[in-house]
């Protein structure tokens, strides 16, 4: 991903690194989604409501066998299906996103539909902390609580930085937690970079029968690279030629 962003000069690597571990945990340990069952309706679903972290999802889809290495590396090239925000033409992507505040409604619609059809699949929805400022996210939270969608699990990537501000300067995460709880959700927190912690939380969902679950994942924007961690500018910057080797080394990769 460091190389990808270096080559394409695209934004959002910081937001990808804060949520990558969550997606790895879900795709490799928790969810029932495979290239084999993806065309069936009776499975789990993943909605990446913070669509700007799509390259992290592409990487996971590649390593999970949904898309080829060539396809993954076509990211950002002209004519590629892998845009900065995802769409369903990419095998493994459940819905197009990119505008914040859309994903939780779509996820709730899926969860209601699966319950109606007596399918046991769960719907996982990854939200950014910033997008909880969207009124539509709260509309969706109301609906999911009211319809008792306990097959819906939302995860907020609480990296505490949004596009142009410290998130808490706009809306405190406690206020988000309160709104979900008041809409009949069960809420818990986890360390979004600790696989054991995440595993135990996910396996415990639904936290309460008849209630959707919200996991506030405490994360670091730009996790794993000292120069990027908790820095707002990495919402936009891409690693320069000089930085690539150093960043990859910090991430434990080989250059």
């Amino acid at each position, binding site marked *: 991903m460091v190389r990808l962003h270096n080559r394409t000069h695209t934004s959002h690597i910081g937001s990808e690194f804060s949520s990558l571990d969550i997606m790895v945990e879900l795709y490799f340990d928790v969810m029932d989604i495979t290239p084999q069952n993806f065309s069936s309706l009776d499975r789990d679903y993943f909605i990446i409501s913070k669509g700007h972290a799509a390259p992290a999802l592409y990487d996971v889809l590649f390593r999970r066998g949904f898309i080829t290495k060539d396809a993954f590396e076509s990211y950002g090239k002209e004519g590629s299906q892998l845009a900065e925000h995802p769409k369903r033409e990419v095998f493994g992507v459940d819905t197009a996103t990119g505008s914040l505040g859309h994903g939780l*409604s*779509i996820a709730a619609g899926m969860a*209601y539909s699966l319950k*109606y059809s007596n399918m046991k699949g769960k719907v996982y929805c990854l939200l950014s902390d910033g997008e909880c400022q969207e009124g539509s996210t709260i509309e969706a939270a109301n609906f999911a609580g009211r319809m008792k969608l306990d097959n819906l699990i939302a995860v907020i990537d609480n990296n505490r930085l949004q596009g142009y501000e410290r998130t808490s300067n706009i809306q405190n995460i406690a206020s988000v937690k309160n709104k979900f709880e008041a809409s009949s959700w069960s809420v818990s927190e986890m360390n979004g970079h600790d696989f054991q912690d995440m595993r135990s939380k996910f396996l415990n969902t639904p936290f309460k029968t008849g209630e959707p679950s919200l996991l506030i994942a405490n994360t670091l924007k730009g996790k794993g690279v000292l120069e990027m961690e908790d820095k707002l500018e990495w919402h936009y910057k891409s690693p320069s030629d000089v930085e690539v080797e150093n960043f990859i080394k910090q991430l434990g990769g080989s250059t």
Partner: protein
Amino acid sequence: MRTAFVNELENIMDKDENTFLLTGDLGFSVFERLRERWSKQYINMGVAEQNMIGVAAGMALTGKQVFVYSIIPFVVYRPFEQIRNDVCYQNLPVRLVGVGAGFSYSDAGFTHHAIEDYGILRSFPNLTILSPADSLEVTAQMKQINSLGGPSYMRLGRNGEPILHDKQKFLKIGKALELTRGDDILFVATGSILGKAITIGKLLESVGYTVTILDYHTIKPFDDESLLKSLDGKRLVVTFEEHLVTTGLYSLVAQTILSNDLSIRIIPFGIGESAIHYSGTREYMLTQYGVSDQLIYEKIKKALG
């Protein structure tokens, strides 16, 4: 029109347990029977239209056919981006149904006037746009609607619009319906204002002109072919719509004519550009824009010389 819509929806739900109706807290005295009978397939989504469209998209992504119902401004304008990204971009079988075409809610004021809806929506991909003229057309379109793989928008009046057809004519979504065939003038109309086109057509025939009337119950895909065929030998084209002419039927007709290197005078009857700050009956509102039987007749007569 509303009653015809609900009756046909009930027929569909009778046969298909995967058809749903979401309403934005509207439908008093319309959905009671349906709500009683299909309690899991009917959901009052409350006053939260953005979520309503997103939920419909999520349901469609998992194999459902979803009708979404509200007054036009609330089902089209409020959740505009959800319609664009979640529904149209992804080509999902979500059926938007809006009541209150044009000045159906004239007394309610500007917030409830629906005069830009199909102009805006025609710019979205994959969307079929239906603008029926009476309840017979609603019934005919509803019988075909689930064969559309992608999304659709149906623009309804309220209730009690006059029936304009003698009997249920064969109506095919996407194909304009020819009501009369004449040599001198071509009338192109959409929605219940078609009634005016029929009235004026008869008046003109009584003074010696013959008129072809094309009923565009489908705005998108736009049936270029029928329009071009009917232009042959005509002196004048007149468009009728209860919508802004700048983005509506008039612009579609003008665009088709120009892009085929043809030249013919077109007189548009519809809503002018300016926002309006008064309200009144539907007829009063239309008259403010020069859309009354008398004004239309006089203008056409003058153009014919």
